[in-house]
C-alpha cells in the first residue's frame, strides 16, 4: 500500500484504456503516454494491462506503507526515494516508510508511478482507468487526493539493489530546433477540403500547444486553416489522435479523454505510435506535423512494440540474474 502525501492536480489511475465501450459513447481514457506505462510494467514484470498512477503535475509525494517495488517512468523529473536521487525510467525496491518525492520536471509533462503487481482498483467496464468526465473507474472515479491509500497487486519481484532501468524507444523523426516533437500524421477524410495554402501551412508551420490542453485534447495555435467552403458535417465517431479544425481555424488534437463523437472537419490523425510523444509535450511548447502513409504508421507501431517486448524480455533476464546471484 502507498499513501498519497501530496497530490497535485489531476493525478489519476490509468491503464491501457477502456476500449470495449466505445459504442456506448464511453471514451477510451487510459494512460496518455502508453509507452511509459508499458516500460514501467515491463521493468516490474507486471501484466501489460496493469494500472499505474499518471502524474501530470509535480510536486507529488507518496509514502510506502510496506516494502514494495515500483517504477517511475514518463516525464523526466527530479525524483528521490528518502533523499536518494532516482534515474529516469527506473524501477526500485522501496522499504516500508520510505517517501518517494517527485520535484522539478526536466523534460516531458506526465510521470507514471507503476507498482509491483499494478495499482489494485476494481475493473469497471473492462478497465481500471479513471473515466474523469463520467466519474467512474480508477480510484473512486476521481483524481487522487492527499491521504488516499492505494493498494498494489503485489507478487514476487526481485530487482537489483540499485534498481533497473530502461531506454526509451528511438524515434526516427529528425529533431528540429525550437520544436519539442515532430509528430507523424495521416491525412484524414476532410483534408482535401482545406485550401492548398492551408494544407502547406499545416505541414510547414510550427504549432504551439496552448494552455487549453489536457487529457481530453490539445488546442493548438498557429496559422489559421481554411476550407474551400464552409462545410456542415454530421457528428461522426472520432478516436484519440484525430486532428479537428473548428470554425476558428485552430486545430484540436483529440486525446485519451476525448468524446467519442465530433462534427468538425478532420485534417489529419496523429499515428498511434506517436501519441506517447505528444503526451509529453507541455503547453507552451511547439510541435510540427510530418506526413506519413498508412504503411509507415504500421511500421512505427511495430518498432514500438518490438522495443517494449525487448525491454520486457531483458528486464526479466536481469531480474532472474539478480535473484540467482543473491538467492
Amino acid at each position: 500500500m502507498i499513501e498519497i502525501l501530496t497530490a497535485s492536480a489531476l493525478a489519476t489511475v490509468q491503464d491501457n484504456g477502456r476500449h470495449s465501450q466505445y459504442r456506448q459513447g464511453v471514451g477510451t481514457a487510459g494512460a496518455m503516454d502508453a509507452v511509459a506505462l508499458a516500460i514501467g510494467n515491463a521493468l516490474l514484470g507486471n501484466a501489460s494491462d496493469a494500472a499505474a498512477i499518471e502524474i501530470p503535475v509535480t510536486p507529488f509525494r507518496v509514502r510506502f506503507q510496506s516494502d514494495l517495488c515500483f517504477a517511475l517512468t514518463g516525464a523526466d523529473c527530479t525524483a528521490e526515494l528518502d533523499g536518494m536521487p532516482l534515474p529516469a525510467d527506473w524501477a526500485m525496491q522501496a522499504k516500508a516508510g520510505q517517501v518517494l518525492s517527485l520535484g522539478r520536471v526536466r523534460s516531458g509533462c506526465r510521470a507514471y508511478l507503476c507498482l509491483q503487481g499494478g495499482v489494485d482498483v476494481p475493473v469497471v467496464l473492462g478497465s481500471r482507468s479513471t473515466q474523469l468526465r463520467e466519474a467512474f473507474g480508477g480510484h473512486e472515479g476521481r483524481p487522487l487526493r492527499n491521504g488516499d491509500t492505494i493498494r498494489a497487486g503485489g507478487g514476487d519481484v526481485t530487482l537489483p539493489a540499485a534498481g533497473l532501468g530502461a531506454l526509451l524507444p528511438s524515434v526516427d523523426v529528425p529533431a528540429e530546433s525550437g520544436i519539442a516533437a515532430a509528430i507523424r500524421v495521416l491525412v484524414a477524410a476532410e483534408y482535401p477540403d482545406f485550401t492548398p495554402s492551408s494544407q502547406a501551412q499545416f505541414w510547414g508551420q510550427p504549432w504551439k500547444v496552448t494552455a487549453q490542453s489536457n487529457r481530453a485534447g490539445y488546442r493548438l495555435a498557429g496559422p489559421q486553416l481554411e476550407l474551400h467552403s464552409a462545410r456542415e458535417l454530421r457528428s461522426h465517431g472520432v478516436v484519440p489522435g484525430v486532428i479537428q479544425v473548428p470554425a476558428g481555424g485552430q486545430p484540436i488534437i483529440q486525446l485519451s479523454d476525448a468524446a467519442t463523437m465530433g462534427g468538425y472537419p478532420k485534417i489529419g490523425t496523429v499515428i498511434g505510435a506517436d501519441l506517447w510523444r505528444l503526451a509529453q509535450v507541455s503547453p507552451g511548447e511547439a510541435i510540427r506535423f510530418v506526413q506519413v502513409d498508412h504503411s509507415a504508421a504500421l511500421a512505427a507501431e511495430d518498432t514500438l512494440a518490438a522495443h517494449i517486448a525487448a525491454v520486457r524480455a531483458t528486464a526479466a533476464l536481469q531480474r532472474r540474474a539478480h535473484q540467482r546471484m543473491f538467492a
Partner: protein
Amino acid sequence: MTSLAELNRVLGWMQAAGLASIELRDGDQLLRMVLDSAPAAPRAAQVAPQTQIVSPGMGRFLASHPRNPVAPITPGATISAGQIIGFLQLGNTLTAITSDKPGTAVQVYPSDGDLLGYGAPVLSLDQGV
C-alpha cells in the same frame, strides 16, 4: 592487474564462487591463479588505502544516463556512499554501478561505451585515512 589489492579481490571472488582456478587475460598479459583444495592461504593484509569499485554485471558502460547527460566523473571528484557512478546497458535495459563507500575519485577505468565484464574495475577511490 598486478596490485596486491586487486589480486586479493580476485581471490575473494574465487572463494565466493567456489572456483578452483581462474585465468585473466589483459592484452598480452596472462594471470593464472589456482586455489588448493586445502583451506585458503591467509590473505595478504590490506595495504592500499585505495578501494576499487567494480562492475556488478556485464554490459556497455555509460558514464551518465542517456536522458540526463552529465559530465563524467573525473579524478578528484567527491563520491558519496550509494552514489551512482555509471550505468551498464544490456539490450534496452540499464543497471546502475554504485559506490558502496565514500571517497575521492582517483581513476575512472572505462570510457563511455566500453564493454565491461562482471568484476571489471570501474573506479578507484581514495578513502583518506
